């Protein structure tokens, strides 16, 4: 098991480096001259050249790439924002808590409510409880996240005045972003949990358990849940990655100065250090989530655990 984790960690680092190269290359070849974007249009060539030298973009691609990788992965330094001259790492550290303030509660809601709703509706299959839950889940799977957010702002912030609409003045202002980020994930997880529970319900060992007179509660907890858990975990991990990926949009809607909004401003200003820093950071998060997902498979399923024990 230990060897497996080590191997996975090594693979993860390789993938991260490759993803960083991919992002850097994309941003390197983005059309537009960074020096001109910073300084304006009517600037003499000499000053532009000086700016390019200052930003370190007058060297060949391969030199810039090497420097970026060395700084990012060995010194944990993504350089300075071209536009604002602030260290990207410092800015990320300031902004990270705001993104996590949304992400972590949303994730917890996601897992808890989504799974519970799914199991609830699987247990009541075909009854009205099931139908209502699934119809609501379907609506929130379908409606665009950012539009639901806008509608919630309209209702809860502007009409009812319960929470502030924009910004991060106080804790209440995080309430709507958390709910809006969690909703699609809850809906997806509920659907996933329901269908994997239903698949398990028809399995022979459930019939056996019922035949021997086992209590329903025990059957659900001991036989159904562990077996239905794998697709549910896959769904939860997917939801987490979606949460990260959606943060630029949701942070734009609520004007929250988090990591997602930072990345987006970097993309719009062609600010390469900012974009690369944020994306590497997001990729790290995603890889960690997938790693944890794979490890929890092994933890939950004795069949997979046995494979690792054999030294795969």
């Amino acid at each position, binding site marked *: 098991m230990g060897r497996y984790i080590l191997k996975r960690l090594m*693979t993860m680092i390789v*993938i*991260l480096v*490759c*993803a960083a190269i*991919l*992002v850097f290359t*994309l*941003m390197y*070849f*983005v*059309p537009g001259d960074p020096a001109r974007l910073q300084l304006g249009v009517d600037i003499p060539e000499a000053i532009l050249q000086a700016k390019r030298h200052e930003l370190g973009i007058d060297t060949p691609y391969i030199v810039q790439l090497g420097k970026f990788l060395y700084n990012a992965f060995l010194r944990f330094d993504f350089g300075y924002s071209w536009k604002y001259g602030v260290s990207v790492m410092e800015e990320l550290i300031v902004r990270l808590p705001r993104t996590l303030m949304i992400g972590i509660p949303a994730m917890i809601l996601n897992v808890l409510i989504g799974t519970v709703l799914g199991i609830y509706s699987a247990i009541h299959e075909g009854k009205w409880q099931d139908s209502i839950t699934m119809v609501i889940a*379907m*609506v929130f*799977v*379908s*409606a*665009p*996240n*950012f*539009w639901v957010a*806008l*509608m919630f*702002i*309209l209702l809860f912030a*502007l009409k009812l005045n319960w929470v502030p609409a924009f910004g991060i003045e106080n804790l209440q202002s995080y309430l709507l972003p958390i709910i809006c980020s969690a909703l699609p994930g809850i809906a997806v997880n509920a659907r996933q949990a329901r269908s994997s529970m239903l698949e398990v319900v028809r399995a022979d060992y459930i019939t056996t358990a019922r035949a021997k007179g086992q209590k329903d509660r025990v059957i659900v907890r001991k036989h159904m849940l562990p077996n239905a858990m794998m697709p549910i975990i896959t769904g939860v991990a997917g939801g987490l*990655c*979606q949460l*990260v*990926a*959606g943060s*630029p*949009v949701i942070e*734009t809607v609520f004007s929250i100065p988090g990591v997602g909004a930072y*990345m*987006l401003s970097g*993309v*719009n200003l*062609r600010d390469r250090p900012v*974009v690369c820093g944020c*994306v590497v950071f*997001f*990729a790290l998060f*995603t*890889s960690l989530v997938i790693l944890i997902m794979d490890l929890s498979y092994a933890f939950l399923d004795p069949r997979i655990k046995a494979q690792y024990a054999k030294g795969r």
Partner: protein
Amino acid sequence: MKKTEKTTYSLDFMRRLLKGWSSRLGFILLALIILLCLFGPFLSPYGVNDIDLQNMYTGPCMAHWFGCDAMGRDILTRLLYGGRYSLLLGLSSALLAAVLGIIFGVVAGYFGGKIEAFIMRFMDIWSALPGMLLCIMISAFMGAGFFATVIALTVGNIPGGVRMTRGQVLAERKKEYIEAAESINGSKMAIMFRHLLPNVVQPMIIITTMSIGSMITMAASLSYIGLGIQPPTPEWGAMLADGRVYIRNYPFLITFPGLAIALTVLALNLLGDGLRDALDPKLRD
């Protein structure tokens, strides 16, 4: 006289698809939306870009059912016209992603070995960046416009299809008919695309139907954050981006475009669910 029912595969399939009320609803809703977007603009008395400063911010009324925007343009007309963009964006990028996903997936699954390892590692790197992030980057890289947005959406959504198809191929390639085709010295291309493909394509059909919806949503999100399709074009997301400034005073500017997206995606998802049930051989009676 006893009436014998005519059954062909496609008839049987349609019957199974439209068995449940939810997939029937999805089918009708989608057909309605497509028809409205195709022919609606001809029925409207207003042009897409007709500016009418007398009617700035007019709320929903008899003359303008969904109201008018900041330049007095009729929102319903723009919605119908913009639906063409949104639907076409979703359809073309979902299909393109599916085709590329299937090709890479079949090749990886059939050849195995180094080719498989190369493709799959590449997909690992690719999906270390969640779909939406990659879309944002590619969209910035490609610039604005319809074609660029299709590419951005496609690129962000290939890895899932590749994994799925490869998994299917791995399960299928050990079967007798493949062995038979190999033993009569069938070409690799023919084995992959004539024999394997029809047997592995079903799950991709379901996923692609669903992904049309998510592509429409992603396209709208891209336009909303200022990438992808840009505002004068009446794409639904671009209309939302246009109207968000007026959320406080004229909420109908963002209600209707969002509702249009939600309904379209809902229809596609319902249909996708129905497809899954209809194609799943386990449930076929």
